[in-house]
């Protein structure tokens, strides 16, 4: 397995940053050396910042002719050996799904930021939303696993961007960084140097004799070593179903074996991939499940409710996909009811209902283009507590 070495923590470097700028700075800190994008609100600041930052570190920024080309170029650069990334918002995220599926199937590491704005279609370009939760998981056709991370503050965007690169490189998978317009454009002070886990991960590259090398044969860890073009392996990479040798096949056993390995690659690492935060869940009668800015509002609501004697707690998935289901089951084990506030018509609630099958789960859904206010969540908690007491 590859080594994650913690860099020595430099002196605290406190800055006022928006979420998108923090994302861009974290990308170069994580070793990102290629960005391809297309202008779209509210994610363009990531591209703008990286167009300035990447040349400083001998990286490449390119603005492509469309969203599809940007995703394709990112995968091309990653196949060439660079840590690569793109950033977009809803309409662009839809267009990226075609090549995102290629990255998942051919196992090409890359990071895709999707800043969620109101939809469907062009929707509300400058307004927040959390309506791409299911698209992040199921957006491309066919069966494939992927990782999606859902930070809730500027500081967490910084840390999770770095983790997104680490996970993408370690597990050879696309990683989606999913956050809403509010935290994308919200400015907060961030201490960059002090505590963030500046993990540096190197992809598992093929080594050893080319004659014996099979690009999709994995040893026990289910992660095949990747061939670096020019290193003598001369392999074939395809979006067709392929066997261990990388060439197209429709042999039922080979197809089954490869897709099963693709899923086992992430399934077998849930301890390392899952991440979440719980606040006051130990004694909570009402557990709130929320991500992003809705989770921030929920934290305030919980304090208010506790002050009035209603025991509420928060379960906040940070790794959104695969969903940290074991942790949620534990956090909600003693709860009388679960509340899911989200800026959509109930996507996260679907997953929570699946995980907590049979438990009373209520939604608080706002899809007006406004963020959910703490008072709205507090009112829902109070009403729900009355109902279940």
């Amino acid at each position, binding site marked *: 397995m590859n080594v994650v070495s913690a860099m020595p923590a430099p002196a605290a470097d406190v800055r006022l940053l928006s979420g998108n700028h923090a994302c861009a700075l974290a990308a170069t800190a994580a070793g990102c050396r290629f960005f391809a994008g297309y202008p779209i609100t509210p994610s363009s600041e990531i591209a703008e910042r990286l167009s300035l930052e990447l040349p*400083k570190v001998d990286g490449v920024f*390119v603005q492509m002719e469309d969203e599809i080309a940007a995703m394709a170029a990112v995968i*091309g650069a990653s196949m060439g050996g660079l840590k690569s990334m793109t950033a977009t918002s809803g309409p662009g995220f839809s267009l990226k799904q075609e090549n995102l599926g290629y990255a998942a199937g051919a196992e090409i590491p890359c990071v895709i930021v999707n800043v969620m704005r109101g939809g469907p279609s062009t929707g509300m370009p400058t307004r927040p939303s959390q309506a791409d939760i299911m698209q992040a998981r199921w957006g491309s056709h066919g069966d494939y696993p992927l990782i999606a991370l859902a930070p809730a503050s500027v500081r967490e965007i910084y840390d999770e961007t770095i983790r997104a690169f680490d996970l993408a490189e370690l597990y050879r998978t696309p990683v989606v960084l999913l956050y809403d317009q509010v935290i994308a454009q919200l400015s907060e002070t961030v201490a960059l140097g002090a505590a963030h886990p500046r993990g540096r991960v190197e992809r598992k590259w093929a080594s050893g004799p080319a004659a014996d090398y099979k690009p999709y044969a994995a040893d026990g860890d289910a992660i095949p070593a990747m061939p670096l*073009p020019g290193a003598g392996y001369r392999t*074939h990479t395809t979006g067709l179903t392929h066997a261990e040798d990388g060439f197209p096949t429709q042999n039922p056993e080979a197809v089954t074996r490869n897709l099963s390995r693709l899923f086992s690659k992430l399934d077998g690492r849930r301890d390392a991939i899952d991440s979440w935060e719980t606040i006051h869940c130990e004694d909570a009668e009402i557990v709130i499940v929320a991500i992003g800015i809705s989770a921030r509002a929920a934290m305030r609501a919980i304090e208010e409710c506790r002050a009035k004697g209603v025991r509420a707690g928060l379960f906040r998935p940070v790794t959104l996909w695969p969903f940290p289901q074991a942790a949620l089951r534990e956090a909600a084990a003693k709860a009388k009811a679960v509340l899911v506030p989200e800026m959509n018509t109930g996507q996260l609630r679907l997953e929570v209902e699946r995980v907590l099958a049979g438990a009373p789960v209520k939604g608080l859904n706002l899809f007006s283009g406004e963020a959910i206010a703490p008072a709205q969540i507090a009112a829902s908690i109070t009403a729900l507590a009355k109902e279940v007491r």
Partner: protein
Amino acid sequence: MSIDTAAAFDVTDYLRKQMMPHFLCPGCGHGMALRALLWAIHDLEIDKDALAVVSGIGCAGRLSAYIDANTFHVTHGRPIAYATGLALARPDLHVVVITGDGDCLAIGGNHLIHACRRNLKLTCLMLNNEVYGMTGGQVSPTTSQSRLTTTTPLGNAEPHFDACALATAAGAGFVGREVTRHVPKLKELIKAGLRHEGFAFIEILSDCTEIFGRKNEMGSSPEMMMRQKSELRPSAYRDTVDTPFRANDLPTGILARNDRPEYGAAYRSAAAAARNGAR
């Protein structure tokens, strides 16, 4: 025309033998296009480890799997966009794109025109067989007028693209066209394209014997080639700039050339200047 290296060139040195037999139909022109490319690679002594071939979807897209190099068979219409990322990341590689007329001009048309404009060093071979062969013979953006395809049962009523005129208008630094029938000439054209410091677009007029030829009763492979011979004439581009595509005199050879700055080098030198405090 140089055929002097023919004796020294063994195509099997550049093929993945484990992939044989190939899947192309008998008489398909794509095999000759592949031979010409590999011969050009041989003549220029390009190291197979330094060669990357990116291909799209369709019969042309399948060719990359046969080449003993770093090969990438990507999504439909996107090989130029993938190759753009690869070539920007790895200026040390020779990046060749193999695409078809549907892949390059229909679903991937936007990537082509912007690659011509951007002028990143890539060699793009568009194998034009006038049809979507792999999906069973549907009309493409280059299907000649009144031709029969499975989606133009009454004859094609749409006008077709002149891909070379399109690439030239979009600013490609190198534009050429050749037929598969003249393998040595095609090889020389590909060599010139590979040597060009910028985006090189080469249209190869290929023959889909099995699907397009059969549907239009164009005869066997040799008969299709002879028809090409009577319909095409090598001539200077300017002489024929106003003639429509495939109207009895389609020019071949190098059709346009300019030496605009190559994008990757321009980007890297601007970045280096910025790092050195020039900006």
